[in-house]
């Protein structure tokens, strides 16, 4: 298993996936996936639709419970705790506390339509008791300005374009000051001319040193920001490495086939 250079330092890996299996009904979606993500790096997961990319991402913050294997983030197992040589499922409140340290950006934004942008961003820090209402709103204003929507804090999500909504969703994920942010095809639901504005926000995060795991179909973007590319096929990682190698000199026939189709 390759890891990028910085991981050798004393800091634990940002994300570790240990032999995760996942079934949907009788269908095997993840088949023993193991993966390590170093802190401060950007990992892009590629693969055909149905290859298990989104499921892997959702396993990372325990939105999907794996049937076997487990995930650690920042050295802490997610959704379970170690007891002897067994793993015991955590109480829901503990899982929620863990999730609040992981940012997640959905393909369909999933903003709360009945709350203003300000409340969308400020809700989680207040509800989890991290910040006072006042502080959270100040932070929310700051973050909305950072994603270029500082003047729309009172608007409701449905009054915005898709690109703007996705930028709010990113601000909402940032409000928890997460150690790692997961992006589930953040631009797939957007019109082509709106993709750029969202990617530029993600690019800023990438250069800022936040650990990112991104599922996307934007190969050009992957080449630009990724430190590591992971190629998933039928629930297994078939190829992994820096973009220069995986994208330009793919070794696995499936990767080659995929790239020849999308490039």
């Amino acid at each position, binding site marked *: 298993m390759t890891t990028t250079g910085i991981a050798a330092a004393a800091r634990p890996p940002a994300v570790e996936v240990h032999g995760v299996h996942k079934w949907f009904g009788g269908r095997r979606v993840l088949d023993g996936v193991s993966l390590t993500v170093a802190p401060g790096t950007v990992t892009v997961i590629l693969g055909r639709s149905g290859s298990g990319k989104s499921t892997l991402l959702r396993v990372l*913050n325990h*939105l999907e419970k794996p049937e076997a294997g487990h995930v650690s983030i920042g050295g802490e197992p997610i959704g379970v705790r170690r007891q002897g040589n067994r793993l015991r499922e955590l109480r*829901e*409140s503990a899982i*929620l*506390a*863990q*999730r*609040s*340290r*992981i940012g*997640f950006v*959905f393909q*369909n934004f*999933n*903003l*709360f*339509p*009945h*709350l203003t942008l300000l409340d969308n961003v400020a*809700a*989680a820090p207040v*509800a*989890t008791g991290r910040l006072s209402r006042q502080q959270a709103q100040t932070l929310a204003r700051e973050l909305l300005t950072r994603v270029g929507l500082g003047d729309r804090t009172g608007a*409701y*999500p*449905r*009054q915005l374009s898709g690109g703007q909504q996705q930028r709010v969703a990113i601000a*909402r*994920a940032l409000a*928890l000051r997460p150690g790692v942010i997961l992006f589930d095809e953040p631009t797939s639901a957007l019109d082509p001319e709106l993709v750029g504005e969202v990617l530029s926000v993600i690019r800023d995060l990438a250069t800022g040193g936040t650990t990112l795991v991104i599922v996307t179909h934007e190969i050009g973007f992957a080449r630009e920001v990724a430190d590591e590319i992971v190629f998933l096929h039928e629930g297994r990682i078939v190829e992994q490495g820096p973009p220069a190698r995986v994208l330009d000199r793919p070794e696995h026939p499936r990767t080659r086939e995929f790239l020849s189709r999308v490039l």
Partner: protein
Amino acid sequence: MTESLLLSAPARPSGPPGPDGRVLPLRRPGRWAAGFVVLVLVSQAAHGLITNPFYQWARFAYWFARPVVLDGLLITLQVTAYSAVLGLAGGVLLALCRLSGSPVLRSVSWTYVWLFRSVPLIVVLLFLYNLGALYPTLGIGIPFGPAFLTFDESRLATDIVVAVAGLSLCEAAYAAEVVRAGVLSVDQGQHEAAAALGLPRRYRFARIVFPQALRSIVPSYVNQLIGLLKATSLVFYVSLLDLFGTVQNLAGTYPGDVVPLLLVATVWYVVLTSLVSVAQFYVERYYARGALRTVAPTPLQRARAGLRDLRIRFRKETAR
């Protein structure tokens, strides 16, 4: 290909359309004829309604706002209000049980709804009315153990209590379905987003899911309320004198006034349900906020816009 399509298109207008550029709308004689026939029939019915001496409109006017009728009206409103609140509370509880992870709570809730949706309200009311025979005393105490406090059923169960209890029990079953459907109508992505943000369970339900569910719960429940308002007419079976019961009673005393008395009840019920419908319109408008980009205009706004259009058209017509 495209050329031939264009060529085969029916007679394209050549040159300017009409002398003043106006297109004359198609005349629809069938529509006018149907409208006319219906108008004649309606006018005949209305004529009969007004001139037929059997309706006794004078007696109607006499009874319409009599204190005894108004007392009945008050009882109707009271019973409706109590049952609406209690029914909704029970319904929310049942819906939460039904949606919970516990199979026991789920099946208890399902059974309750099944039972009370299966039995006519009259039967429930008659049951409760005769409850005194079943359970002469009601006690509070240890299950299957001694009772600490006992109530004498016949003292506890006044007519209004029986009526409200029966209506609330049935209403709760329907409200449970309304609330459950509302909660399920909230996009799964909302649950996921809230979970991904680590929002606590209670907060998630109270602030994220429920407010969005209200958008579908409120209109359905107000509809339900209209049904409830009308269902209260059944409480005369348990000898409670609501609006209908009063009218029925008076009709017994004044057999000649049966029809005007029924009309009194009809008009009052129409007024009440219409008021609820108006409230429903504004409530729905309120809950549409955030869900639609623009809210629909109120009838008043629409009427004003319609008048303006009419005036403009009128001016154009007369100007020519």
